[in-house]
C-alpha cells in the first residue's frame, strides 16, 4: 500500500486505506518519540521548507520538530521576516527558495487553495499545513489518530464537531477523514457559523448543543474568534458560551468513556470551560504529542515520491 498522490493537500478524496496507512505508520513514530533518543536517520539528506504565511505556534513547531527528528534539513520561513513584505509573490518566493534545491514544502497560508498553486509552480512534495478555511489535513489525521488510539477503532464512533464550523479548516478535514473511516459525524454551531448548504456535507447538523452531543463518544471543540462577533455573526461571547459552550454540566449527556478534544488555541471560558479542558477525559495535550507522530509519518510517506508513481 502506498499513498496515491505525492502531495498531501487535503483529506477529501483520500481512501480509507490511505488514511489507515498514515495512522499505522504514525504508530511506529509515536513509539520513537517516547525513546530517550528521539532521532532517526529516515530523511537524512532531504531538505524541507516550512513556509508559514500565517501565524502558527503548534503546527509550526510540530512540523519543525518532526522534520528534525527524521534528520531532515529544514528551513523555516515566516511572512513577517521575508521579502513578502517587499511585495514578492508566493510563486516567486517559492521558486527562489526551491532554486536552493528543496525536496518538500510544508505550507500554511490564509488563502484557501494556496497549496494547489505550489503544486503548479514547483517540483517539491507539498504538504498542506492549513489553507484558509479549506483543509488542515495533518490536524484531522492527528485527531483521528488520537481517537483510534483510545478506542482501537474509528468505525461506528459518534464524533461531534462544535464551534465555528463555517470558518474552520479543521472541521472540513475532520469531516472527510472521519467519514472515510466510517465514524458517525455531527456538526454543531450557531446557524450563522454554519457554511451555506451544510446539509450537502452528508453529516448530521445541529444548532442545539445538547441535542448534538447527546450520546456522542467524542466532542471536538473549535475555537471561537472574537472577529466573528465583530462581524455580526453572533451577538456576544456571553451568549455563545451560554448556548454552545462545553461545560461540565453538559458532559453528562455524553457516552461513558467519552473524549474531549480541541485543536487549540483555546479560549478558556468561552467555547470550553477550564474544568472540561483539564478534566480526565480531555486529550488536548495528547493531541499535540500525537501531531508530531502524524507529521513524521506524512513526511516519511511522501518523501521521495515522484510524479510518475501516481
Amino acid at each position: 500500500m502506498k499513498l496515491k498522490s505525492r502531495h498531501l493537500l487535503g483529506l477529501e478524496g483520500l481512501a480509507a486505506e490511505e488514511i489507515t496507512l498514515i495512522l499505522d505508520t504514525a504508530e511506529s513514530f509515536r513509539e520513537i518519540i517516547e525513546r530517550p533518543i528521539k532521532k532517526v536517520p529516515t530523511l537524512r539528506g532531504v531538505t524541507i521548507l516550512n513556509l508559514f504565511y500565517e501565524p502558527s505556534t503548534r503546527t509550526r513547531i510540530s512540523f519543525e520538530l518532526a522534520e528534525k527528528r527524521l534528520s531532515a534539513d529544514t528551513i523555516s520561513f515566516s511572512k513577517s521576516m521575508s521579502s513578502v513584505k517587499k511585495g514578492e509573490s508566493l510563486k516567486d518566493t517559492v521558486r527562489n527558495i526551491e532554486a536552493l534545491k528543496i525536496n518538500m514544502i510544508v505550507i500554511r497560508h490564509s488563502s484557501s487553495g494556496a497549496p494547489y498553486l505550489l503544486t503548479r509552480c514547483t517540483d517539491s512534495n507539498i504538504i498542506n499545513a492549513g489553507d484558509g478555511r479549506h483543509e488542515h489535513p495533518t490536524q484531522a489525521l492527528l485527531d483521528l489518530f488520537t481517537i483510534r488510539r483510545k478506542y482501537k477503532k474509528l468505525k461506528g464512533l459518534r464524533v461531534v464537531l462544535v464551534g465555528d464550523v463555517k470558518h474552520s479548516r479543521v472541521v472540513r478535514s475532520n469531516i472527510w477523514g472521519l467519514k472515510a473511516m466510517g465514524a458517525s459525524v455531527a456538526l454543531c454551531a450557531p446557524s450563522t457559523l454554519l457554511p451555506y448548504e451544510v446539509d450537502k456535507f452528508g453529516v448530521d447538523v445541529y444548532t442545539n448543543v445538547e441535542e448534538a452531543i447527546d450520546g456522542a463518544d467524542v466532542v471536538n471543540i473549535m475555537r471561537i474568534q472574537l472577529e466573528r462577533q465583530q462581524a455580526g455573526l453572533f451577538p456576544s461571547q456571553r451568549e455563545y458560551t451560554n448556548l454552545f459552550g462545553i461545560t461540565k454540566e453538559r458532559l453528562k449527556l455524553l457516552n461513558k468513556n467519552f473524549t474531549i478534544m480541541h485543536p487549540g488555541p483555546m479560549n478558556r471560558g468561552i467555547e470550553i470551560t477550564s474544568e472540561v479542558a483539564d478534566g480526565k477525559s480531555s486529550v488536548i495535550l495528547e493531541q499535540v504529542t500525537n501531531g508530531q507522530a502524524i507529521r513524521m509519518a506524512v513526511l516519511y510517506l511522501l518523501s521521495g515520491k515522484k510524479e510518475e508513481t501516481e
Partner: protein
Amino acid sequence: MAKAKYDLVIKGGRVVDPELGFGSEAYIFIADGKISEISKETAAIRKKVAALPAEKVIDATGKLVTPGLIDMHVHLREPGREDKETVTTGCQAAAAGGFTSVCCMPNTSPAIDNQEAVKFVLSRAEYADARVYVIGAITKGLKGEELAEIGDLVKTGAVAISDDGNYVQNPEIMRRALEYAGMFKIPIITHAEDQYLCADGVMNESYEGSRLGLKGRPAVGEVIAVLRDIKLCQFVGGRLHVAHVSTAGAVAAIREAKKEGIKVTAEVAPHHFSLTDEEIGKEFNTNLRVNPPLRTQKDVEAVVEALVDGTIDCIASDHAPHSEEEKDVEFDMAPPGMIGLETTLGLVKTRLIDKGYLSWGDAVRKMTYNPARILGLPGGKLEVGAAADITVIDPDKKWTVRKEKFRSKSKNSPFIGWKLSAKVAYTILGGRVVYKG
C-alpha cells in the same frame, strides 16, 4: 477608418440576418466600404463576379454570412492598464472573434467619467480593427456617490452609462441616475451585485464554496440588486440593462418585469452558460474567478432557458483581460474576470446551438441586432447602403482554444484546451478584411 476604397464580393454564403431571414444563399457586393448590393445568384450576377479579380472575391460557399457581431460588454483597459490590453489589441481580439463593434466599459484608470476620457478612447480607436463605442460612468470615479456629467458623456459619444464592476449601492443615487439618463434616451447598465452581501466574496455561495472554504458571493446578492433596480426603473422611468445575468432568481425577476412592461433588457456572458462553480475546486484555477461568479447547474439551465424565451436579449463576452502575473497568485488574491472575445462565438455554437437551444438566427440576433437596438448603434443587419460590417463564419469547423493563438494581450481564459465548433472565416469592417481565419 481607412480611406481607401475596397471592392469585395462575398459569394454564395448563407445569409443569417434578423431582417432578411435565415439561410438563403446570396451575393453581397461591397463598394466604398458600404454594402452596395445583396442579390440572389443569377447568370448576370455570376458573370459580374467572374469579371472581378480573384482577390476581390470571398467564396463563402458552405459558410454563414452575418451582420458584423457586436459585443456590448468588453474591458479594453485603456487608459491605465495597457499592459493587459489596449484599444488596438482588444479590437484585434474582437476581429478574431468575429466582432466588428465593441462597447467598452468605463472602469479604466482614470475612469471614463468625463468628456476627455471618452474622446481619448475614441481617438485610440480610430484605426483599430473594430468600431469602439464607449460606455461612460454613472458616477464620478465609479464611486457611487455623485453623478458623472452624463450629458457631456453622451454629447461626446457615450452610448450608455455603467459603473460596471461596482453596484450603485445607494438607491437614491441610482434613482437619480435613471431619471437623469432618461433625458438622453440612453440605457443604464447595472452590475447587479449587492456590495454588502457580496463583500470580499470570491466565488458563488454554495456547497462548492463551503467545501473549498472560499468566501461567497451569494445568488441573492444579485437577485436583490436586480429587483431594486427594476423597481426604481418602474418608478422613475428610464431604461435599465442588466449586465451578465448569472442567477435563476435574476432571470425570474427580469422575466416578470418584462411582462409588466418595464423597460429592462439583459445580457448573459458565455461563461455563465458554459461553466459552473464545480470547476473551481479541481485546482483553484484563478481564471475561473469572475464577478458575478460562476453559479450552479440550476442557474446555468435558467439562463439558457431565458435565452430561449427571450428574457435575455443579448450575449456579451464581458471580456476582462488580466495579466498573467496578476492571475498567477492565490485564488482569493487574483482579480476577477476572464477574456472572452475570441471564444464567445465558439461557445455559443458549442453550448447553445449544437445542443438545440438556439438557432443560428436566434444567436446572431442576440449578438448583433439586439445589442444594436438597445444601444442605438448602427449595424446589426445587412442593408444596402450601410457600412459593410460583416462576419463570415465556418459553422461546423472544429478548433481547439490555444493560449498562444489569442490576439488579446492577456491570456486569462478558462477555456484554453476546450474543443469548440464554429470558427470565424472572415471579419470585414467597413469593407476591409480585418481578420481571416
